[in-house]
């Protein structure tokens, strides 16, 4: 069953928050890398260059500091480092988990490839995956830091399974490792964890496997820690209302991309976790005007009341030009604060939030 989101939401309200209403603003995670960081990533592999691994670490630190502050400048209540240290969402973790090996890139479509790893023996936890980056980011951030982690279902199904009788069993072992990592992050001070499961969107019939994996991930995790689940691009009616049984605080969805056509799916039966609603499109290079985003936010109020609504972009913004990503984030926060003020002023009918006042 759903965790207790009301027990952990208020800790993210900034001290100087201007409104009574509080729609928590956040991001899904990834953000465009500064061009120089891509150059640095390549330079470290160039045998003729003096640029070495220590230099790259410094470059990653600089980029994380930069993007964390960029998120704060946009006014977000909770921030991420933009995943500056990560290359790809499965590769990054597979490199850190014992039991994976890499054989080379495989085709996704056209000339787009993915270094799909193989699980060749039982997966095991070795060194922490994200604790160092969390500690770094939270030291440079003034706002609370959210930590996105690729979920065990995606880590399992987006790999070749050579070692386990079924990929489901692999997923459960991976879930136990994610649980270990979340415990370490919580020990280091993390209070907002987001599990990313894009693979569920393509195989919604496996929702029970994801549910069981989540049970393992949150086992022993205190209710003051906020656990979100992000699933993008899919037919949500195939996993709703099942997600109401997931042990999560928040469910993060990508609906802006589909003009919120799927909103009615979540209205019956009643939505139980908090809703994290994508209100700017991660795949269009135009910055949505504030007024348009405000209308999108109202869509979320059809599903949950303000105290259960979180606002984010649809998905990670890493494929956009950086100025567009910033513009979308900044307008998103502006729109949220304006909607909050309108709620405070009684200008939005919460029973019929799309109605003009």
């Amino acid at each position, binding site marked *: 069953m759903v965790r207790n989101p009301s027990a952990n939401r208020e800790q993210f309200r900034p001290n100087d928050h201007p409104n009574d209403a509080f729609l928590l603003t956040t991001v899904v995670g990834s953000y465009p890398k500064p061009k120089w960081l891509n150059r640095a990533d390549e330079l470290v592999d160039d045998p003729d260059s003096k640029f070495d691994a220590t230099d790259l670490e410094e470059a990653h630190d600089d980029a994380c500091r930069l993007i964390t502050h960029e998120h704060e400048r946009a006014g977000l209540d909770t921030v991420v480092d933009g995943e500056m240290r990560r290359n790809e969402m499965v590769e990054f973790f597979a490199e850190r988990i014992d039991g994976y090996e890499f054989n*080379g890139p*495989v085709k996704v*479509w*056209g000339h*787009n490839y993915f270094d799909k790893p193989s699980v060749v023996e039982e997966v095991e936890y070795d060194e922490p995956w994200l604790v160092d980056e969390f500690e770094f980011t939270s030291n440079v951030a003034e706002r609370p830091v959210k930590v996105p982690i690729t979920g065990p279902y995606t880590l399992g199904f987006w790999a*070749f399974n*050579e070692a386990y009788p079924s990929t489901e069993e692999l997923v459960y072992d991976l879930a136990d490792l994610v649980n270990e990592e979340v415990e370490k992050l919580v020990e280091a001070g993390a209070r907002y964890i987001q599990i990313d499961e894009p693979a569920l969107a*393509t195989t919604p019939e496996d929702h029970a496997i994801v549910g069981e994996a989540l049970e393992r991930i949150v086992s022993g995790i205190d209710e003051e820690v906020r656990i979100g689940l992000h699933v993008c691009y899919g037919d949500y009616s195939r996993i709703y209302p099942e997600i109401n049984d997931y042990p999560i605080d928040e469910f993060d969805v990508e609906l802006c991309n589909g003009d919120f056509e799927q909103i009615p799916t979540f209205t019956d039966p009643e939505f139980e976790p908090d809703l994290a609603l994508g209100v700017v499109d991660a795949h269009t290079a135009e910055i949505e005007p504030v007024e348009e985003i405000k209308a999108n936010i109202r869509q979320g109020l059809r599903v949950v009341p303000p105290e259960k609504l979180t606002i984010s972009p649809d998905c990670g913004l890493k494929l956009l030009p950086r100025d567009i990503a910033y513009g979308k984030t900044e307008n998103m926060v502006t729109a949220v604060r304006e909607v909050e003020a309108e709620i405070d002023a009684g200008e939005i009918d919460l029973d019929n939030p799309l109605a003009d006042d």
Partner: protein
Amino acid sequence: MTERVAATPGLYPLPDWAKETLSDLKGHQKGDLLSGDESEAIVEQYDEVRAEYVDDQLDAGLDRVVEGQGRWDDMIAHPLTVHDSVETGGIVRYYDNNNFYRDPRVVDDLDFSGDVARELESATDLIDGAAPLAATLPGPYSLAELATDEHYGDEAAFQAAIAEFLAGEVEAFPAHETLFLLEPSLVTSPPAEGEESAATDAIATVADATDADVVVQTFYGALGEKLYAHLVDEAGADALGLDLVAGDRDDTVYNVQEFGSTDSLALGLVDGQNTLVEEPETIAERVEWFESQIPAEGFDRTYLTPNTELFYLPANKYRAKLNALTAATEVLE
């Protein structure tokens, strides 16, 4: 005495060097994919890829050599996506995989193209008589399923037109020993009950266009029993290809025991979608086990094949799978 033949249905992964050179030359976006009128520089890259595929197969000792279909950006939809009467729409999911192809929207008469025949001519030159050639095409049922009809207006007419188009392409092929027709849609979205014969007629139209042995390769699981029976009797196939990796193997055994089989069979024994490389002894045991389930007194030929195309794999594992197949035929000798 049953002959054992190591073969593949083609669609190999690009070598890693070609993944880089071709993405640099072509780009990463939808509009950058192959349209059939590629530049000389791109043609040269694919010539090298093709030569490497032929070497890989001759080195492994395969009994049939394919062109490798390195140019097929859109997987088995390729013969349509490069056709002049086809416009490519959005990127759509390729069956149940994390792979995507451009939706081929057929907007005009599907006349002769010759694109695949040209590839096979080049392959024939490279092979230079060292081994028999196997040609690869999508089967008409699957190709019609993957495409969008904006011209013929009627499902049956569309399927028949695609079959006629493919038959015309086959007639232009250089000499080939075997023709693989890839028909995964027969498993994933089979024809409605009562419409099986339209599908098998379409396949027979293509099969009749060649004197070569025709293998109708089905994959991503077991065939439904009724459709299986229709295919054995009506598709004009010398061999039906059966997937023994994905789906329920017992269903496939049941089909063969209950409804008999074509004179030859292709057995999908090696997993085209997993990097785990099968031991030759294991493959050989599976062949003997399956052959022992067949009621008929021996039959002409067993093709030892991967269950699917091999492009899902990293390049090193694709080569290892070719070697495993030929090693298995040696175990069986």
